[in-house]
């Protein structure tokens, strides 16, 4: 549990992201971005790209390799596919966050939950639309971070999305080490516990460097 001393009243931007929707925006080098799980147990699927060359992007595998740890937590530096530090997690009031289980999609939902779910909204639908705003395509969507999503990987390999640990108002905060585009899908999944079976709004705040 690492709290932030930043004052919400001093934030330069505040965005409420309604349940199930996508959002994207710029976070400049030195700025801090906070993502607030306003109602608790809400997965926030998140990707980062170098704002000046989007072929450089967050790499879950490079990040976990460097940390030799299976989750994202306070102090973790997010590493790009070019091996560069993109952001560091400076505050986290939850504990740890998944980056191995990816984003839900219409297609994977059919495999996981049955073909009767094929007309439900999903994170990759949000990602494709938000990525398109920045000139990117489906092929640019890589393994993301799932803030507030609890996916323990057992020593025998078993893994499953289980009840989220976050309570209303819990947050994560990251400081940008380069200018980044942030893509968010406020996860619309209702077939597993990642949103407590009830998707809810979240909030994004951005601060200039002190």
């Amino acid at each position: 549990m690492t709290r932030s001393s930043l004052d919400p009243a001093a934030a330069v931007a505040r965005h409420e992201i309604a349940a199930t929707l996508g959002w994207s925006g710029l976070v400049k080098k030195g700025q801090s971005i906070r993502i607030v799980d306003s109602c608790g147990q809400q997965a926030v699927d998140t990707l980062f790209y170098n704002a000046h060359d989007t072929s450089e992007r967050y790499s879950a595998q490079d990040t976990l390799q460097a940390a030799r740890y299976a989750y994202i937590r306070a102090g973790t530096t997010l590493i790009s596919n070019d091996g560069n530090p993109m952001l560091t997690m400076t505050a986290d009031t939850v504990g740890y966050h998944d980056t191995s289980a990816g984003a839900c999609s219409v297609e994977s939902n059919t495999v996981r939950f049955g073909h009767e779910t094929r007309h439900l909204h999903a994170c990759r639908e949000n990602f494709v639309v938000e990525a398109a705003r920045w000139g990117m395509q489906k092929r640019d969507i890589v393994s993301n971070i799932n803030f507030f999503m609890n996916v323990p990987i057992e020593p025998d390999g078993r893994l499953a999305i289980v009840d989220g640990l976050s309570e209303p108002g819990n947050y994560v905060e990251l400081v940008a080490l380069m200018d980044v585009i942030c893509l968010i899908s406020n996860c619309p999944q209702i077939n597993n516990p990642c949103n407590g079976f009830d998707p809810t709004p979240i909030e994004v705040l951005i601060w200039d460097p002190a």
Partner: protein
Amino acid sequence: MTTFSPEIIAAAKARYGELKAAGQTEGAFEARRDAAPRLGAIPADAARFTDEIPADWYWHGHVAAGEILSIDNPAATPGASLILWSAVDPSERLNPADTIKVQWTAAIGRGRVLLSDMGRAMASVVDGPDAAMDFVAGGSTAFSAGPGRFNARDHFIKAAAKHGLGKRDVGPVMSLFAPVVTDAEGNLVWGDAPLAGRVDLLAEMDLIAAVANCPHPLAPSAEARPITITLWRPASAPDFCRTATPEAERAFINNEAGR
């Protein structure tokens, strides 16, 4: 924004509990896997291509649906990384996250399927060990391999380029012969599974594949040894992976629909 009735939410919750229990209870999957015949030696006249890949080098090529991509590691090199694209639409590619999430385990091996981002089986793991594949930590990079040494990431960028693709098409990868385990504290550690052996991947769609013979970044030894790639067509395609789990069966419904 869609809202769901309490009845729909309750039904989804119950359904998830059933799926999770079925997906994580040992028994049915293991029985189907263990009952399936082993492939054995590759018949001399069945291979259309074979090549020994030197340490730290790579291979790339097309694998037709119904062919088996065999990767043999007789000298126990510590890891070789793999990436798969659909040859028909390369924007469809191996999705390591979906592969482990959908099958309820990071211990992927014989009997499992390798899933694309479009909910289809790209390949079935028709033979090889029961686990010892890594989908979490990935392959080597310029950073992990160190300056002046070839690495999996850069090999994949070259392989992609030779099929009209590029750096944007090289996302997360999987590694063979890489027993990466998450310990009880969440640390990623190198397990003790034997490394030597052969992995046989049955192409379930026309594929472009790339294999980087570069040691895994978490391996205790960074010394690579040659591996052998063979492309061959069995007399009858082993199909037990298609029905090994309900998830695999549903993925193959998508394969059929996508033809």
